[in-house]
């Protein structure tokens, strides 16, 4: 009976949390006064999609992927080339990006069966660099180093997502769908296998689970998320060129994952938000803002390896526990008088 009421309470709490988050997302453009602020939020949303995908490889299965920029670039170029060279609708471009993610994920998943640790990381860096160099040198298709300009906006039944606010709501829908899928997948038997792969791959294999297909699935999901985010980015920026998709971008995505906490879907959103917004806030320190930001990230990595958000929650919980204990003691003392 007590268990049932706990489940009900948890459900209620979740519904309240989801409704509050949805309300915050809906009213945010009214609170943010300038296009610049909404643009930064749009970047947060796009990067959240990438990090949600990266979480499956690095967060859940524990394999280092430093090639996310390559996946991001493939999605961006797939839709940008389709839209600008062939006049194909951005929505079909999105489908192309997903197909691209599927292919890349499977292609990258196979090496992951034989490679581990630093070797896998190097392979993914190599993949990302290959994508960037192809984009830079295949001039007839990608525009070479000059890139692709005039990438159209998304539009739906004549309604064009042509302002930062409109794009914000569109991207919020994508993020909501991405979070929903990520939660469902993380809580499914696949999610549990991913986590167990991180903890002890040999034990998983001994239990009769086909770990090859699981690893490939993790890479495929990551690549699909990355390519979708890339597609959104291309139509958001209106212009892409290969210099945007460097190893620095991949590293940034890993930092977002680390700041948010490995393996946590809510942490992914938090990480993307902190790593995108914090440097903008720190701009008041002028020439030193990057130095301060990097120091904060470094200190965070050393002292809060489980993610800043969870470190914060832990501290708050401890404080609440202490307060309750104190209240309890005071109450007992009061009762004794």
């Amino acid at each position, binding site marked *: 009976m007590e268990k049932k009421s706990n489940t009900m309470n948890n459900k209620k709490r979740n519904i309240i949390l989801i409704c509050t988050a949805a309300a915050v997302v809906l009213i945010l453009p009214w609170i943010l006064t300038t296009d610049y602020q909404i643009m930064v939020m749009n970047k947060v949303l796009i990067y959240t999609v990438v990090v949600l995908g990266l979480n499956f490889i690095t967060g859940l299965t524990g394999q280092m992927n430093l090639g996310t920029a390559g996946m991001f670039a493939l999605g961006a170029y797939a839709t940008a080339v389709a839209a600008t060279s062939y006049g194909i609708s951005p929505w079909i471009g999105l489908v192309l990006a997903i197909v691209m993610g599927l292919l890349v994920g499977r292609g990258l998943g196979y090496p992951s069966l034989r490679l581990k640790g630093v070797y896998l990381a190097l392979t993914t860096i190599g993949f990302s660099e290959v994508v960037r160099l192809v984009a830079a040198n295949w001039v007839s298709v990608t525009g070479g180093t000059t890139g692709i300009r005039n*990438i159209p906006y998304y539009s739906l039944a004549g309604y064009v997502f042509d302002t930062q606010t409109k794009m914000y709501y569109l991207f919020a829908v994508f993020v909501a769908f991405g979070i929903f899928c990520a939660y469902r997948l993380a809580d499914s038997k696949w999610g549990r296998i991913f986590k167990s792969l991180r903890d002890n791959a040999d034990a998983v294999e001994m239990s009769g689970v086909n770990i090859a297909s699981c690893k490939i699935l993790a890479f495929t999901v990551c690549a699909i998320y990355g390519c979708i985010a890339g597609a959104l980015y291309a139509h958001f920026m*209106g212009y892409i060129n290969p210099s945007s998709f460097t190893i620095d971008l991949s590293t940034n995505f890993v930092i977002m994952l680390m700041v948010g906490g490995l393996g946590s879907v809510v942490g992914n959103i938090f990480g993307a938000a902190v790593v995108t917004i914090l440097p903008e806030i720190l701009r008041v320190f002028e020439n030193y803002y990057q130095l301060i930001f990097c120091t904060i990230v470094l200190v965070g990595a050393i002292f809060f390896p489980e993610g800043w958000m969870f470190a914060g929650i832990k501290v708050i919980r401890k404080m609440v526990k202490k307060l309750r204990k104190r209240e309890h003691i005071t109450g007992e003392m009061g009762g004794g008088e």
Partner: protein
Amino acid sequence: MRKKLVAIILVGIMSLTLTACGSPANGGSTETASRGGGTETDSKEAGTGWSGDTIEIGLISMITGDNPLNGERMNQGVQLAVDQFNEEGGIDGHQINLTILDDQTTQDMAVTCANKLISQGVCGIIGPHRSTNAMAVEAVIEAGGVPTFTGGTSPKISELGDQYLFRCRASDSIFAEAAVAYAVNKLGSQKIGMLFNNDDFGTGAEGVIKAYCEKNGVDYVEQGHNTGDKDFTAQLMQMKSDGADTLIIWTHDAELAINARQIYELGLDVKVVSSPGVTMNQVIDICEPEYIEGWYGITDYVSSSDDPAVQEFKNAFMEAYGIEPELYAASYYGATVILLEAIKAAGTDDPTAIMEQVKKTKDLTLPNGTASCDDVNDLIHNVNVAKIVNKEVVFEEAISVE
């Protein structure tokens, strides 16, 4: 249930495909369409008076990223021009306030910086420097309607057709044509060997030089490389076996310095004409004197020129910062002077009025040449040739291309 779900998804995809025709692209966007740049803080009536006590201008610089030293010179050049105007009482009694933002030399951050500056209500923007970054911010500044001055030299910037985007350095087509013309006409080159970076900077020049050689019947061979390459011996040996008597090298600072060392080590007996990098301290300082002795560089600015505008700027810069200025400092100092002169002439900080005044710029003397705005918003049409003698940059001649 599953069939129903599949049917609903298919109908959804089909309706999206049918209804979602491509929306207008950036260039043809509607009035409300914007990838940013809304000037919500700007409440002043267009074209009249001043919106506040100070005149707000912005600089998108390279404080971090690939070229922080160039970014620092850029900041110093712009700040010097602002300080000079402020010392003279500002413009119409209004002091100029400069906001500097770092774009990390990436297009993503350049767009963010442009949006931030426009949201703050600046009436003019200096930077971003890279051509690709300029192309990235182009849609934002056009939507925001703020005159912007880039030092990106790609010829493609002239094709953008953005009335708010001005170029404060000569186009690569001018640089490259000056380089090959100097090699052929002044150095008597018979066979040109072109070593170029495969990026936008290098390929832009390669196209111009190749076309010049074809047109004038000059023998031509070429070899490309990528940014970050460390070994050019294969390309250089190929040049030697092809019998090139003059090398034209068009690449970035790090690759240029490595090329210089390897040309010396391989003992190539050739004349060398280079992109501007060889005239700058960041390349000269990391080269032994013999590596670059007798090299020619095509550049915007040469400190040793006896032009009074150059000497005046050089002295002011050295007094302010204690170091000798180079092309980044000179070019962006020049861009700031053009912007501030336009604000003065417009008598307002309305960006559209300022843009119209910049378009009227004619024969304005600057350290990096004479500024006159043409149909495609290019302001500078001349370059200088310098020779490296014992690590000193010696002015040879100024070349003007119309």
